[in-house]
């Protein structure tokens, strides 16, 4: 039986619910993520300034908790914020956390 919570977290979102990557207030990079899978990919691709901007504002935490409805991932990202992680270290850790969570959910979904 497929896990309904995992399927919810892994779902593809409509464009108005996607995460839009900015580098500062009002400056949109053109990159967006409309699912956890895309979010994992984008953490590798977007400008690190964008990752720092959104981490500092709490945008990643908010989007993962409120839109993806994944509180566990939101908590893990919150921890990164509290540690003051930045630069390429932020990229690596954010990518690791998000990709691990994606693989977990994918495994749960296919059980």
């Amino acid at each position, binding site marked *: 039986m497929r896990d309904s919570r995992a399927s919810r977290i892994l779902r593809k979102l409509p464009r108005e619910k996607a995460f839009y990557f900015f580098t500062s207030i*009002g400056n*949109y990079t053109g990159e967006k993520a409309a699912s956890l899978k895309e979010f994992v990919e984008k953490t590798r691709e977007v400008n690190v300034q964008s990752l720092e901007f959104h981490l500092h504002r709490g945008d990643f935490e908010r989007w993962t908790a409120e839109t993806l409805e994944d509180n566990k991932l939101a908590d893990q990202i919150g921890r990164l914020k509290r540690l003051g992680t930045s630069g390429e270290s932020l990229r690596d850790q954010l990518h690791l956390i998000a990709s691990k969570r994606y693989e977990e959910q994918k495994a749960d979904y296919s059980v």
Partner: protein
Amino acid sequence: MKIKDQTVILDDLDLRILKSLQENSKQTYTEIGHSIGVAHSTVYDRIGKMEEQGIIKKYTALLDLDKAGLKNVTAIMTIFTDPKESENVAERLSELKEVLEVMTSLSEELLIIAKVIAKNQDDLHSFIAKSVAPLPGVLRIRTSIVTRKYKEDGMNHFLISKQD
């Protein structure tokens, strides 16, 4: 005023009335007539026709938001779009109450320039992230926040007086 081939042609009197109205739109027909030397009935008639033709779009108040104690942030957005979607993006932006002006510009690529107002920087960002970035055809956005306004007139005396 004459209408030729569906184009409105304003005469000197129309232009003088417009200039007077732009200086002070609260003037009465008599006051305008007095200042430009024609009867108030002529002013009434000309203004009515210019309203009908959409030359006078509306009468509005130009506010000083800072003096009114209304905190605000004004920003200029430059929106890079897919050329096929530019018109749709411009039309959708024009429907949003936070957007004061929308223009298109062709430099190296087709751009949309829009003036936007919000209560503060957080609201500005939230508006752009939730209402502008998701519009189909938006490729990227550059936003400049206005730090000081040196002139904000909204009138075009210059063009009106240059017509002759």
